[in-house]
C-alpha cells in the first residue's frame, strides 16, 4: 500500500536511521559524561552500603580456614593461626581499621584485634592457647561468630544498621549498638518535618498562586518578582539571613519588643520553629511557580458557565476550578516533599541537635565519624524514598514532567 514503491520506503527508512544515528551522536558526549561522573559514582555509592572489602580483603587465610568450621564449638587451631597471620601481616593502621569495622558488630573487637596485631607469638606452642592467654575473649564463641559472619565479600551490616537492626545468630533483631543514634526515628523526623513543610506550602502557596495567576499590572509584576527572586537566590544565603532575623537578639525579636508585643525574646531559631520557617521560605516558590503555570491555563469559560448555571462561588471553586488545578497542586506537593527530605544546609544552620535530617547523618558519617558504609546505607535509603515518592506520583498522575529547582 506504499506510495512510491519499495525503493522509496527503503530510502526513507535509511534516511530516518541516519537521522537517528546523527541525533545519538549529538547526545553521546553528555550521556557518556553523566554515566562516568554521575551514574557510576551513584552505583558505587549504593554498592558501598553492602560492600565488605575492608574486612574481606585483609583476612584471606582466616576466610579459607573458617570455611571448614562447623560453627558449633570454638574454631580449630588452624583458624586461630590463620587470623593471627592475617592480622600480623598488615600495617597497624589497617589493623585498626579492621578492628573498628568489627567493633561495629561486637564491642571490644577493636582492642582485641589491635592487641593481636602486637602480640608476640611463640611458633613452637599452639596459637589458640597463646591468644586466649593474652585475652580470654578469644575463647568466646560469639567473637568467632562475628568474624565468620563479617568476613564475607558482602555484608548486610550497614543496611540493617541504618534501620536500627542487626544480625545475631542468623536472625534479624533490634540493634544493640552502643552509640544510641536511632536512625528509624531520624527517618521518621525527616518525613515528619518534610510533611509539615509541604502542608504549610500548600496552605500558604495556593492562595498566592491564585492571586499571581489572576493579578494584573504592577501588583502582579511585583508579586511575581518577589517569588522569582527567592527562587533564584542561594539557599545558603536565605538560611543565613533567617539567623539574623530570628536569633535571640535578632531583628524580629527586637522589633517585637520595641512595639511592645512581647516582653522577653522568643526562641525562634536553633529549634523546630526555625527549621519550619526557613524551609517553607526556601521551598514555597517551588510550590507556587508550577501551580501558577497550571492556574494560568485554567479554562475561565468553564467557571463562567458553572456560575451562569447557578452554582455558588464555593461550588464553582469545588467543581469547576479545583479539578483543573489538582494535577498542578499534586505535582507541587510531590516536588516540595521530595526536595525537603534531602535538605541538609538549612537544618544545620537554623535547627538544633534534634532537628537534623537524614542528610546531616550522611554527611556526619562521611566526614566527622568516618563510617562510609553507614553513610552509603543511609544515603541509599534516602534515595530509595525519593524514587518511591516520584514513582508513586508518576503511577498516579501519568508522566507529568517535573523539574526540580535547587
Amino acid at each position, binding site marked *: 500500500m506504499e506510495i512510491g514503491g519499495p525503493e522509496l520506503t527503503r530510502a526513507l527508512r535509511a534516511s530516518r536511521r541516519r537521522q537517528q544515528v546523527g541525533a545519538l551522536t*549529538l547526545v553521546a*558526549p553528555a550521556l557518556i559524561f553523566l554515566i562516568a561522573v554521575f551514574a557510576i559514582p551513584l552505583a558505587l555509592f549504593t554498592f558501598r552500603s553492602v560492600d565488605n572489602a575492608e574486612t574481606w580483603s585483609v583476612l584471606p587465610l582466616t576466610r579459607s580456614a573458617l570455611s571448614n568450621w562447623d560453627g558449633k564449638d570454638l574454631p580449630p587451631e588452624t583458624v586461630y593461626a590463620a587470623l593471627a597471620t592475617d592480622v600480623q601481616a598488615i600495617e597497624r593502621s589497617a589493623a585498626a581499621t579492621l578492628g573498628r569495622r568489627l567493633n561495629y558488630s561486637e564491642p571490644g573487637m577493636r582492642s582485641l584485634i589491635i592487641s593481636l596485631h602486637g602480640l608476640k607469638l611463640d611458633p613452637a606452642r599452639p596459637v589458640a592457647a597463646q591468644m586466649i592467654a593474652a585475652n580470654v575473649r578469644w575463647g568466646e564463641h560469639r567473637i568467632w561468630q562475628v568474624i565468620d559472619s563479617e568476613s564475607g565479600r558482602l555484608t548486610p551490616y550497614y543496611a540493617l544498621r541504618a534501620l536500627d537492626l542487626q544480625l545475631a545468630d542468623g536472625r534479624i533483631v533490634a540493634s544493640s549498638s552502643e552509640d544510641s543514634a536511632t536512625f528509624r526515628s531520624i527517618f521518621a523526623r525527616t518525613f515528619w518535618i518534610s510533611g509539615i513543610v509541604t502542608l504549610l506550602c500548600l496552605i500558604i502557596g495556593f*492562595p498566592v498562586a491564585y492571586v499571581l495567576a489572576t493579578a494584573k499590572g504592577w501588583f502582579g509584576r511585583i*508579586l511575581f518578582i*518577589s517569588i522569582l527572586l527567592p527562587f*533564584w537566590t542561594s539557599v545558603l544565603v536565605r538560611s543565613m539571613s533567617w539567623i539574623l532575623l530570628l536569633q535571640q537578639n535578632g531583628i524580629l525579636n527586637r522589633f517585637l519588643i520595641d512595639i511592645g508585643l512581647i516582653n522577653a525574646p522568643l526562641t525562634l531559631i536553633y529549634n523546630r520553629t526555625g527549621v519550619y520557617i526557613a524551609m517553607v521560605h526556601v521551598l514555597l516558590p517551588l510550590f507556587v511557580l508550577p501551580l501558577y503555570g497550571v492556574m494560568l491555563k485554567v479554562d475561565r469559560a468553564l467557571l463562567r458557565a458553572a456560575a451562569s448555571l447557578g452554582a455558588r462561588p464555593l461550588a464553582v471553586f469545588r467543581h469547576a476550578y479545583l479539578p483543573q488545578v489538582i494535577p498542578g497542586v499534586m505535582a507541587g506537593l510531590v516536588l516540595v516533599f*521530595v526536595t525537603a527530605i534531602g535538605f541538609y544546609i538549612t537544618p544545620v544552620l537554623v535547627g538544633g541537635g534534634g532537628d537534623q535530617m537524614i542528610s546531616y547523618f550522611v554527611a556526619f558519617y*562521611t*566526614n566527622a565519624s568516618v563510617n562510609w558504609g553507614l553513610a*552509603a546505607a543511609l544515603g541509599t535509603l534516602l534515595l530509595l524514598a525519593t524514587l518511591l515518592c516520584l514513582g508513586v506520583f508518576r503511577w498516579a498522575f501519568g508522566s507529568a514532567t517535573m523539574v526540580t529547582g535547587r
Partner: protein
Amino acid sequence: MKSDRSVTMTERVFDLGAKLIAVLVAIFLVTPILVIFPLSFTSDSLMIFPLPGVSMRWYVDFFTNPVWLTALRNSLMLAVVTMVVATVLGTLAALGLVRLSRGWRSVVSTLLLSPLIVPVIIIGVGTFFYFARLGLAGSFFGLVLAHTVLALPLVVIAVTATLEGFDPNLVRAAYASGASPFPAFWHVTRPLIMPGIATGATFAFITSFDEIVCVIFLGGPEFRTLPRQIWSGAKETVTPTIAVAAVLLVVASVVMTLVVEALRKRAQRLSKGAAT
C-alpha cells in the same frame, strides 16, 4: 437580586483575603533577602536595626582580605568553567534530543534529567567517594565535573524549550539552498536558539556559583569558594563581612533573573518572527 449581591460579596471577601495573604507572603519571601543589603553597610559589628551608622568598612574588609578574595576568584573560575562545559554538552544533547524518535527520546531525556531528582547530598558524597579513589577529591577539576552534573540538565531544559518552538523547515530551506550541515546550524539554528543557550548558560553559572554541598565534600580545605566561606562562618556567627559576601551572591542572582527574563522576551519575539 439579594442572593446575587451576596455572591459578589463573598467573592470580594475571598478575593481580598487571598490578596492580603499574597502581600504578606511576598513580604515574608523578600525580607530575608533584602535585609542583608542595609546590614552589610553597618558601621558596627552588631547586625541590628536601626543601624548604628552607615559605612563601607565591611566592603573594604572584604575586598582587602586575601581569604575572601581567593574565595571570590575560586567561585568565579569554577562557575565560568562549569558554565562552558555544561553549555557545550547540554546544547549538543538538546539538539540531538529533539531529533530522536519518541521511544529513544523519553529514555535519553530521563537519563539527562536524572541528576535533578537525586538529593544533592548523595551526589556530593557519591562523587566524593569516587573522586577520592581517583585522586580528584579536593581539586578544582573534580568540582567542575560535579557542578557540571548539576548544571547539565538545566541547560538541556533551557535549550530544548527554544528548540521546541523552532521551525525545522528553516534548516531544510538552508539545505535546499545548498548549505552543508555546519553552516546551516551556524547561520540558521544557532541565532534562533541563542536565547535558550544563553538562558541555559546563565542557569549553569549561577548553579555553580551558589553551590555549597558538593564544595563541602569535594573542595577540601584547599579549595574554598564564596559559599564555602559563608558556610563555615555562618555556623559560628554571621559577621558583617559574611553579609557582604552574601550580598554579592544575591546581586549575582538578581542580575541572572533579569538576564533570563530579558532572554525569555527575546525568545518570544524571535519565535513570533520566525512564525510569520
